[in-house]
């Protein structure tokens, strides 16, 4: 509307964007796309452009365990990981025999309804077998999730492994042209740790998946670094993970045959490759013919067609037409027709979050939200000795007027309660939050005894999670009894939709966050802790 897309001073693109709207990648379109001993007939994630692209069976039932790309969440391009455990335990749409989790703390801050999800991980069928019989966790730390693993694959940190921030995924590009980057290990892995990438390559190779096997069935890639250098999107395409120093001698960029010395060339260039586009290709890239043809030649896009931004979305309208029975092709189940017809409005509109609509907002008047602390983009490794001195526990930030009206002092212990649960925490007065909203840092709170911290660590005694107040399913209502607490169009988790009330603690209550969990026993081989000094001396070993 403002005419500022990819203009000087406006919102500028970074390669591989702009991409067609919607992007081309598609998932399989039905259960026939998932066959034993056969690669998936499509991408695991994609962008449905119309109802016929949905990943559902002929009754309209989801094929994926998280129900992504189904009529419940048609455009869920990121999947609905927050519902996998609940769905598997409810056998909805089916049960599973193995769950493999990589670097996701589903027994803690990555799940909504954390208390009950922890119970689900241990839940048994009537015959005594576990509802999730085999749980594999790959992580570099003793997280809350690691404690539930049947098989723990010890991962490495970023300092101990090769990585690519690839043009095929989410590179570090700049406004003036494509850029990508790598990580190169600076220390060897400890003990039996193995980078998860190597585990995946190993699995693919041993299963003989086509991408990992030569025509005669022998193993194609030695390891992850070999895979990164030699993998091409299509054999002979000259397009691989990294855009820099391609060609036999590293003389080509963006496109060229694999270069056996590509890692060394990245290393010499500070692990970064940057390509500067000609000035005439740097702006208006949605409609810049020269740029689009260049992008197509270098496989950043599949079509050299203008990329128009939708104000009126024909994609959304196609789903609405199906819900209204005005189109042929795949049809939604009847109980979801009204929901789809409402939310797939082709024009933007405001609606109260589904969760709020189903909450008694006179009883729970406040909105509660979280954000990640700037100093810890991920909770992963936030327990390290320096970062935990920046944030070792969190407060609930409440507008001072709202807190005084609830008789809660600055710094005092208090309760925050939703229709699903309650949490005891400490209050911090704030002038920079509006009176109808309270907020806290996400994932500072940790379960006692996890992450290599002492049982008495501030993270478990003063830190808390808001997740206990948020359910992963909406209350049963006219559209369904077990719908995920997620956006009906994109499946985006409804983390910010919870409504709460606050009140002071009673006289004599313990000054410790609630809920508390019994400490996780120390894993075999772990170091014991006591009060002590931690210090590093450069060159100490060299002497």
């Amino acid at each position, binding site marked *: 509307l403002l005419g500022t897309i990819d203009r000087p001073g406006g919102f500028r693109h970074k390669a591989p964007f702009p991409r067609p709207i919607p992007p081309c990648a598609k998932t399989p379109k039905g259960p026939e796309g998932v066959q034993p001993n056969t690669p998936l007939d499509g991408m695991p994630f994609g962008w449905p452009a119309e109802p016929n692209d949905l990943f559902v069976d002929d009754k309209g039932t989801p094929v994926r365990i998280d129900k992504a790309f189904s009529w419940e969440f048609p455009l869920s391009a990121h999947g609905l990981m927050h519902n996998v455990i609940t769905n598997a335990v409810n056998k909805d749409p089916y049960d599973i025999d193995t769950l493999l989790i990589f670097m996701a703390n589903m027994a803690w801050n990555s799940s909504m309804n954390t208390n009950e999800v922890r119970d689900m991980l241990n839940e048994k069928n009537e015959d005594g077998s576990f509802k999730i019989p085999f749980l594999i966790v790959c992580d570099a730390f003793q997280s809350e999730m690691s404690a539930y693993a049947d098989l723990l694959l010890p991962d490495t940190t970023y300092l101990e492994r090769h990585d690519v921030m690839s043009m095929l995924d989410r590179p570090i590009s700049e406004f003036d042209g494509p850029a990508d980057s790598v990580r190169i290990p600076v220390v060897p892995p400890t003990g039996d740790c193995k980078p998860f990438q190597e585990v995946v390559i190993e699995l693919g190779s041993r299963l003989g998946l086509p991408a990992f096997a030569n025509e005669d069935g022998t193993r194609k890639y030695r390891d992850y670094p070999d895979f990164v250098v030699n993998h091409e999107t299509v054999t002979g395409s000259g397009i691989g993970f990294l855009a820099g120093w391609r060609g036999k001698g590293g003389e080509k960029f963006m496109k060229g045959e694999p270069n056996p010395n590509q890692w060394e060339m990245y290393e010499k260039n500070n692990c970064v490759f940057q390509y500067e586009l000609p000035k005439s290709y740097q702006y208006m890239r949605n409609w810049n013919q020269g740029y689009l043809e260049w992008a197509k030649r270098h496989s950043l896009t599949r079509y050299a067609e203008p990329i128009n931004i939708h104000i009126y979305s024909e994609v959304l309208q196609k789903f609405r037409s199906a819900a209204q029975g005005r189109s042929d092709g795949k049809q939604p189940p009847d109980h979801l027709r009204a929901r789809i017809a409402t939310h797939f409005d082709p024009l933007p509109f405001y609606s109260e979050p589904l969760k709020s609509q189903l909450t008694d907002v006179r009883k729970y008047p406040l909105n509660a939200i979280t954000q990640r602390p*700037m*100093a810890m983009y991920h909770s992963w490794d936030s*327990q390290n*000795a*320096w*970062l*935990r*001195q*920046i944030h*070792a526990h969190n407060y609930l930030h409440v*507008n*001072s*007027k709202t807190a005084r009206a609830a008789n809660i002092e600055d710094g005092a212990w208090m309760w925050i309660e939703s229709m699903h649960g309650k949490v005891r925490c400490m209050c911090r007065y*704030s*002038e*920079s*939050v*509006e*009176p109808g909203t309270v907020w806290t840092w996400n994932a500072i709170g940790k379960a006692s005894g996890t992450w*290599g*911290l*002492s049982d*008495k*660590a*501030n993270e478990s*005694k003063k830190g808390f999670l808001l997740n206990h107040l948020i359910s992963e399913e909406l209350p049963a209502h006219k559209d369904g009894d077990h719908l995920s607490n997620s956006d009906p169009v994109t499946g985006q988790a409804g983390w910010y939709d919870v409504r709460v009330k606050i009140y002071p603690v009673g006289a004599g209550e313990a000054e410790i966050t609630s809920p508390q969990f019994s400490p996780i026993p120390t894993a075999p081989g772990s170091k014991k*802790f*006591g*009060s*002590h*000094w*931690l*210090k*590093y*001396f*450069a060159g100490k070993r060299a002497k």
Partner: protein
Amino acid sequence: MKQLALVIDLNVCVGCHACVTSCKEWNTSGTAGSMSDFNPYEEDPTGTFFNRVQTFEIGTYPNTETVHFPKSCLHCEDPPCVPVCPTGASYKR
């Protein structure tokens, strides 16, 4: 050599503490010896930092703002707190 102070634009600083940890990483490895931590994985961890970001609020709602105020020592000729700043708030000529 003449040392000029650092310029830090408080309108641009977002309080990420990258300068804090980068400073500690370089200086703890230096000839001046280690910057130690007490109770590193226990209750109430504490330690030595040459740079800390103090965050505070000004004013009364709705006329309010949050200020992130990096308190760097300004001693380094080539300060490791500057190049890690993701927003370009820190500057040294």
